[in-house]
């Protein structure tokens, strides 16, 4: 079962409640190669719409990068590149992604992949000067938006 299917199931069925007011900022979504075009090619279904739907249950202001979905650019950290010794090439690779992100004007970027999140949050933001953009996992966005009955939902 994919993380997208599960999070969608929770929200659709009302098993979890979400408060949109916790993330008022303009938000964009990064399509990881593996969940998007490679999933489509390998399994016959690319996860393009589910994560966008989940994100938009948590935020009101959403903007897509261009190009996106099947044609999206890799963050530059994929295929094990994040764990490889070729940092200079990895950062060079990420310049396209960095420009895509900055061009949206978004202040929050959501990624449902560990590699992509690390490459963008820990590397590209410094290298290409967009430290003002916050980066969250998709499930981090959901967890930070939760309203839990009987629990004091303080801001993180």
């Amino acid at each position, binding site marked *: 079962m994919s*993380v997208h299917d599960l999070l969608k199931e929770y929200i659709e069925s009302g*098993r979890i409640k979400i408060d949109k007011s916790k993330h008022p900022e303009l938000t964009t979504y990064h399509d990881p*190669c593996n969940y998007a075009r490679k999933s489509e*090619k390998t399994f016959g279904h690319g996860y393009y719409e589910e994560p966008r739907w989940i994100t938009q249950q948590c935020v009101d202001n959403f903007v897509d990068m261009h190009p996106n979905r099947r044609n999206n650019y*890799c963050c530059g950290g*994929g295929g094990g590149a994040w764990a490889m*010794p070729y940092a200079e090439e990895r950062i060079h*690779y990420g310049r396209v992604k960095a420009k895509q992100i900055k061009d949206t004007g978004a202040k929050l970027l959501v990624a449902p992949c560990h590699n992509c999140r690390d490459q963008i949050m820990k590397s590209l933001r410094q290298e290409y000067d967009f430290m003002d953009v916050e980066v969250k996992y998709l499930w981090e966005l959901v967890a930070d938006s939760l309203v*839990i009955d009987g629990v004091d939902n303080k801001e993180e």
Partner: protein
Amino acid sequence: MKTCKEVLMQGETIVLDKREKRRLAGEYPDLCLTCGTCAGGCPVTGVDGLDMRKAVRMALLGLDQELVDSRFPWICTLCGRCEEACPMNIDLLKMMRSARTLRDRDKVPGVMHKGVEMCLKTGNNVGIPKEDYLFLLEDLGAELAEELPGFEVPVDKKGARIMVTINSKEPFAEPEDMFFWWKIFYAAKESWTTTSENWEGVNWGLFTGDDDSMKEIVRRIVENYKKLECEYLLLPE
């Protein structure tokens, strides 16, 4: 070695000659029209003087070893944008991953092959011992329970609806990032479990082109899943 002219004089074609020597090319690169669409949309075109179009030519011309020895198949992130754009549907990712497979294991760049070996030996890529891992889960669970009354981390719980793997970087370096999923499971009142052994969710065999190790790592996860009789398997990668 024959010259091109000699080859042509004998009525052979260069491209289809000696196929058995072309371990990378398979049959697909034969279809390449050299249009360069693959290279045109790739952010690392030109690094080390190479690009996907050239890589296809190398495979096709039998320069397998040169490609295997180059850094390019590793600088390529296997993102698949080239393959998506290829008008001839050439299996470019398979070709690049095969080039990784053909590298000697002790020449795989960086830590990934060591991680694969560690995973086969200890059940996770960074070699966290079972006792330390279980202690960490219990400790973090107790910490989260201060916010979420009654929370604890279920380990090896038979019959749970969802079995979850864990990315070893989290217990290793970013343990509190595990709270995100734990909070969601708590809020959803989910029946879930993780496992005390072979819980690694990151399969580096995929990236190093090591199919045998990759399959063994997956086999162990599926074994846990069957043993615990869970309904769904969730790999939050």
